[in-house]
């Protein structure tokens, strides 16, 4: 039995909105009973882009994160008193029955991801169906993933070890995250590279300020931990530590032979640009 899901490779999402448009094109004006009624002309974002701009000054990152129904294994939208209106199919797709859910506005608020929208005219809660009408019709993909121009959305069978999606999840296992996993929802939608705080900066030598310093050693250590991460400055004298924990104190040390090292402590309440670290000649 297939178990369908989508992997979002955030690093590849350029924020073009094509997924949003393809979703509109598929669902506006088109009923697909018994799994979905037509999406209203405006206001619904069954897939939406969250824009994230983080960092400061000369170290900034611009990311876009598509967010849609997470098709959770433990969906919060299914409760003991609405089990008739919302159900999870054996292939993992969570469906709000467009007829049985009439009048059930409470279902909108049950979703911790904000992925369910209220259709005022039809008085029903609606969301991404993972294009189940296409899949049930024998199609092998879904509209948003099909039209994604960079391959940031990958659809497939999570139970098939040979599927592209499964291979991707294995290849990037260390970067795979679920949204709000602490809620125990166990989403079938997975994210690779959800932006986490970074610390970045630049190493400069006091007596060679017009040269970028390639190969200076920079280390990072979370306070209270033993693990030390070491990087070297790149061609432009820049360094960066990605994927750090939030609200943690880190000690950074920059070193270059023949120069006095610099050490400083930074707290990751957000991504941090420590700016230019100017090492004095010995």
């Amino acid at each position, binding site marked *: 039995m297939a178990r369908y899901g989508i992997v979002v490779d955030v690093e590849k999402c*350029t924020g*073009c909105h*094509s997924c949003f448009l393809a979703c*509109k094109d598929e669902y506006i004006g088109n009923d697909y009973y018994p799994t979905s009624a037509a999406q209203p002309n405006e206001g619904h974002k069954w897939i939406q882009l969250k824009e994230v*701009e983080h*960092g400061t000054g000369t170290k900034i990152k*611009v990311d876009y994160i598509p967010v849609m129904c997470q098709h959770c294994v433990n969906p919060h939208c299914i409760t003991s008193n609405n089990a008739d209106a919302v159900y999870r199919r054996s292939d993992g797709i969570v469906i709000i029955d467009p007829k049985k859910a009439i009048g059930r506005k409470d279902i909108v608020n049950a979703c911790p991801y904000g992925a369910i929208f209220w259709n005022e005219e039809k008085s029903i809660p609606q969301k991404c169906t993972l294009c189940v009408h296409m899949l049930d019709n024998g199609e092998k993909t879904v509209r948003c993933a099909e*039209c994604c121009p960079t391959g940031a959305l990958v659809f497939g069978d999570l139970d098939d070890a040979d599927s592209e999606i499964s291979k991707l999840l294995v290849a990037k296992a260390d970067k795979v995250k679920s949204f709000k996993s602490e809620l125990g929802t166990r989403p079938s939608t997975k994210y690779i590279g959800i932006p986490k705080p970074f610390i970045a900066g630049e190493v400069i030598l006091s007596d060679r300020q017009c040269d970028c310093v390639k190969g200076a050693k920079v280390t990072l250590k979370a306070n209270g931990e033993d693990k030390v991460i070491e990087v070297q400055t790149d*061609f*432009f004298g820049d360094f960066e530590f990605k994927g750090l924990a939030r609200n943690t104190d880190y000690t950074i040390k920059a070193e270059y032979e023949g120069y006095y090292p610099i050490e400083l402590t930074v707290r990751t309440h957000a991504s941090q640009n420590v700016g230019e670290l100017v090492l004095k000649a010995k």
Partner: protein
Amino acid sequence: MGYDNVVTTTAWSPGPGCHGGCGVKLYIKNGKVVKVEGDENHPFSQGRACPRLLALTQYMYHPDRITYPLKRVGARGEGKFERITWDEALDTVEEKFSNIKAEYGPESVLFCQGTGRDIGGPISFLAYSYGSPNWIQLGLAGHSCYTPRLGAMMATHGDYAVLDAGQFSEKRYADPEYEVPKVIIIWGQNPMPGCPDGFFGHWIVDCMKRGSKLIVVDPRWTWFASRSEKFLQIRPGTDGALAMGMINVIISEDLYDQEFVKNWTEGFDDLKRRAAEYPPQKVAAITWIPEADIIAAARLYASAKPAAIQWGVPIDKCPEGSTVAQAIAHLWCLTGNLDVPGGNVIARPAYGVTTYPFSTQEMHELYGEEFVRRLNEKRIGAKEFAMVRNFRGWAQPDLAVKQMLTGDPYPIKACWIQTSNVLGGQAADTALHYEALKKMEFVVVADLFHNPTTMAVADIVLPVASIAEKESFRSWWVPLQVIVPAVEVGECRSDWEINLELAKRFNPELAKRYGSVKDLINDRLKPCGLTYDELKAQGGWIMPPENSASRPYRRYEKGLLRPDGKPGFRTPTGKVEFASKSYEEWGLDSLPYYSEPPESEVRTPEVYKKYPLVMVTGRRSSVYFHSEHRMIPWLRECDPYPIVEIHPSVAEQVGIDDGEWVVIENDRGSIKRKAKVTPIVHPKVISVPHGWWLPEEDGCEPNLFGIWDINCNKLVHIGPGAKSGYGGGAYKTALVRVKKANGAVE
């Protein structure tokens, strides 16, 4: 949902609006397009589409779309139009234009277009058949869009060049001859949302996936900038200094390609002397880019083989845009990256097929030297600017608007405006253009929707077909491809149909040559040896043949570029000219140099004191093409407000919050925008998206869909800012200040 049939065609202009090239599948049911997808078998876009293409059905069948000809019945600006027949519309235009020609001469009519889409062919055929030399991008200060770059490339190496993403081969990245650029400099562009100048933005992403490293030059952090090796956050308008600084480093550190420079170039010593005037330290002070980063960027670019530059319209908008472009073109020549795999390859349209005459050279071939000479006598700007006279055959927009107002040296009486929303779009100094257009005796607008320009000045409005409704072809580099009509909407006609019909009325000779649009297309297609129907039948597109002038690589070695068949380039010396003989002939400095923006902290410190922020306009949106698409609901939802991007430090200083409406002003006026407080802009720069008007608002005067409140071009002065007549439109360098808006403006 079932479909009756699927039509494969090419995207170009009305619909997605853009410079096109993508393969498209139109799903048809009951004579209507019901769904649009990218064509996975097409080598240009390989199945990819964009939001504007995906929203095509909303655009085509929009309730506000103009679907039959209109004539104005009230006063201009009252918004009162009445349906008329095509016969009445064309008869009216023919009569009015003929009367103007008889009384004032054909040069008294301007033929105005917007950005270079598929309009060049239809509008130039019409203008020249009528006899007017004044084919023009009215409002575009300094004609600052691609023309300065094209002129610089033609002067430097006798051809145009583009970043090589394997687009000239149907095998693309898998072509055994192809190499991915090791380093790409994206210079003043966000290629993905805009897909500019026949270049599909996603190709850069394709290259990144295959290992290309980026250097990005921009005042604003883009998605590409935040994935680059180095982001050079430049002071707007100073790109010329950066290019000269990089040339300085590359020459002084011997990083240039000695073999290529020795064998294939002229004027190296002159360039070396000129570049010596731009040491990195001096350039750092001009550009706001740290000295060390300028040096390292030059080293990284010059030492990577191959490396390529993808450049954008801000280069044209620099003061003396054609000399800034010259300096950047010198970078790929100095480093031996010209016409090599993964470098900047010479770009000629496949088989040499063009939709219209592009250079003076081609003009001579099509219309004869005598006709071109006569055109040059009367063309606006041809006397003042030798480059305008000798390159591309456009009238100069800044002189034209002045002449519309003064009537000097001859009166301008009418405008034919097609694919251009002058007042809601490209016109710098909107009020000046409004005043000038109001003086016209007769204005025709051919478009798909009402906009501020139709409402303010149109006497006749002609309904234009979208890409899904027209028979046409596209020849912008590669591939050579057909545009196939799938359906009809109302009485809309294609630009080709409208213009050929009128052109034949003015020029009976033309009627003998071309009975139909297809006759004309077949004539243009001749060099490829196929007719429109044959090309369509064999899949709709073809790539240039191997070992031909329109297919890379290293054609200068094979003697494929010059008319005499000798190795070398199509320049006066046959070499790449670092010191340009053409520029010299046109009375310009033969070498590149830096020129300070007309308004800046350096040139006008007193203005800067009052207006301390540099306004860059024109950042691209993935859902809009310039002034189009604000009425398309699906697209508007993605980018709903006319915003201004403001750095948090500026917002704090001025006391404004994210989402608050603010006033942006200078001595030329003020506009309102919704603040987006973001670290992606430089603290001394604000970014103001252009092309905004509000289709949901009252279109009648005085409101004109809100342009006087939100159109940023009100704050930009006209040019020409450049000695060549090309370049220097100050769309990226106007100085402004920002303050809180009093009262609600929503």
